[in-house]
């Protein structure tokens, strides 16, 4: 009988493995891989020397520095202060806690251009906050960092929050009863447990900041060589109908982001290894 061989097939408890895997593959290919590969295909129409010339143009190189530098700083700021906000939201009870918890998500919902305009009017030299400072905040890299910090805020808070909720108070009590002070308990017990979540939040915020365009163009001032971000260079090239030039710069962004995220994921794998055996 033909069904004698049936039991040999590995049985899965949850049905639909093949169906869901196929769907995942198709979905990722259509939505992520295909558009991204178009960038490479488009760039291929350039010769190697042309390509190098475009991506090493001093204005482009300066923009890489601005983009990656500000995104990194904004990511670090978010990693630190996002963790503090998550801490306060999980550990303490205070009035309007729900409202503040909801406010954290607002940068997600707000159109980024609106955020850019709002921040610019605040931090411009004659704005509410900007007028109190001797130096420029808007129209300088500092302004870009503020905008990027704003839009990246929810990532760290939302990744750290559930992890913090899951750490039992008993672990901290055990640490205290063994003679550790609060700082030691935080550094040696809590931080290692939170590190993977903070890293995830950081890499999300960082990646988001790299690609951010809408909020930054308003506050940056867009001075070539100083406050011009890479996405803006791409936009400018597109407006001049220089599609291949735009995709060439995009390739640089794409490859660098990929490498950076890969490194972050590797670090994360290292810190996570201890929990998964």
């Amino acid at each position, binding site marked *: 009988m033909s069904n004698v061989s049936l039991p040999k097939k590995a049985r899965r408890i949850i049905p639909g493995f093949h169906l869901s895997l196929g769907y995942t593959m198709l979905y990722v290919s259509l939505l992520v891989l295909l558009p991204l590969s178009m960038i490479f295909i488009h760039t291929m129409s350039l010769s190697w020397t042309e390509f190098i010339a475009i991506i090493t143009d001093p204005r482009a190189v300066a923009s890489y520095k601005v983009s990656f530098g500000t995104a990194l700083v904004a990511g670090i700021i978010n990693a630190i202060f996002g963790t503090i906000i998550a801490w306060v939201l999980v550990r303490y009870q205070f009035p309007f806690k729900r409202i503040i918890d909801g406010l954290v998500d607002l940068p997600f919902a707000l159109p980024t251009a609106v955020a850019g305009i709002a921040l610019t009017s605040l931090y411009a030299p004659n704005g509410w906050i900007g007028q109190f400072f001797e130096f420029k905040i808007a129209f300088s890299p500092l302004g870009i960092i503020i905008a990027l910090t704003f839009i990246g805020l929810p990532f760290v808070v939302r990744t750290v929050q559930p992890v913090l909720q899951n750490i039992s108070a*008993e*672990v901290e009590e055990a640490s*205290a009863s*063994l*003679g*550790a002070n609060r700082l030691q308990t935080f550094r*040696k017990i809590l931080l290692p447990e939170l590190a993977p979540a903070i890293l995830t939040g950081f890499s999300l915020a960082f990646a988001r900041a790299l690609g951010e365009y809408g909020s930054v163009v308003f506050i940056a001032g867009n001075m070539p060589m100083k406050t011009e971000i890479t996405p803006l260079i791409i936009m400018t090239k597109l407006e001049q109908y220089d599609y291949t030039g735009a995709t060439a710069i995009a390739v640089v962004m794409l490859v660098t982001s990929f490498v950076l995220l890969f490194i972050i994921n590797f670090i994360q794998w290292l810190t996570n290894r*201890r929990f998964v055996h």
Partner: protein
Amino acid sequence: MSIHIHNVSKKYGSFQALEDISVDIQSGELVALLGPSGSGKTSLLRVIAGLESSDVGEILFDGQSMTERHPKERNVGFVFQHYALFRHMTVFDNVAYGLKVRPRKTRPSKQDIKTKVMELLQLVKLENFANRYPTQLSGGQRQRVALARALAVEPKVLLLDEPFGALDAKVRKELRRWLRKLHDEFHITSIFVTHDQEEALDVADRIVVMNNGKIEQIGSPDEVYTNPKSPFVYDFLGNVNLFKGRLANGKLMHGEFALDVPDSHTHTDDNAIGYVRPHDIHIEKTNMPGTVPAKISHIHLLGPIVQIELRREDLDEFLEAELTKEQFFQLQLTIGDQVYIKPKQLKVFIPEDYSI
């Protein structure tokens, strides 16, 4: 170190977790806090450790007040029910933690820490597991790591919160014997919380029976088992048969029973409840004076002990009796047999004095 707990009370909102608790614990004693869940035993342990503060009352270690001291200054070892191991650290680092966080002046050298930790791991028989992570260990092994970790700081007092509660029966028995042995070797004042009367009776020097935030009785295991001071203690420390009847002329009248109750002549016609342990029920095949007829409805053979369920003929009530195997075979009992029973020993409580 001796511990004096002096009039300690604690409330969580409107819930009275501890009500005017006073206990003196001698240096080197192993004391069990026994009670059902919600009786306040864990709260008391946490107050002693300083993990929780009491509203009223004082905790003294060797006569010194600890009430205002932070847990890290109390020098207690605390073992949690769910181990509370640091899961990102190896077994070695877990045990070493208490030594590594000491201020530089009192911190032992790296080599000393290593020797000490390996010594402790040997003591808990986990020397081959030093480089494992807690998730790679079984429940019993984790609890032993937690014990070693608590002992590493050389505490003057060892506090254990349901230390064996999450383990299976066999490991539990093994570990509690081991704890007893450890205690006999090191003579460290220890308090452990449990809801398992067998565990408390088996391990402790003294038992503090708690209920509803109050102490019901303090005494040696034998004392609380054979001479319970309240119906609650009687009920909590083992199986029991209730004889709800009336006291009259020094006798408890219950169905056809008229049982002698010494020292009860002051009571006349009061409601009273007789408490009889299953092994104190005497079974006879022939009718003797003072017995009542009953029918055997169930027999459970459980190793050396035979549990017998009886239905009393005079009252239509069920009773539980326990016999040794020898007695059981001597009597040649089978289900449906007509037998005659009487309690060998009973303890009478008047419900007006006690409410369960």
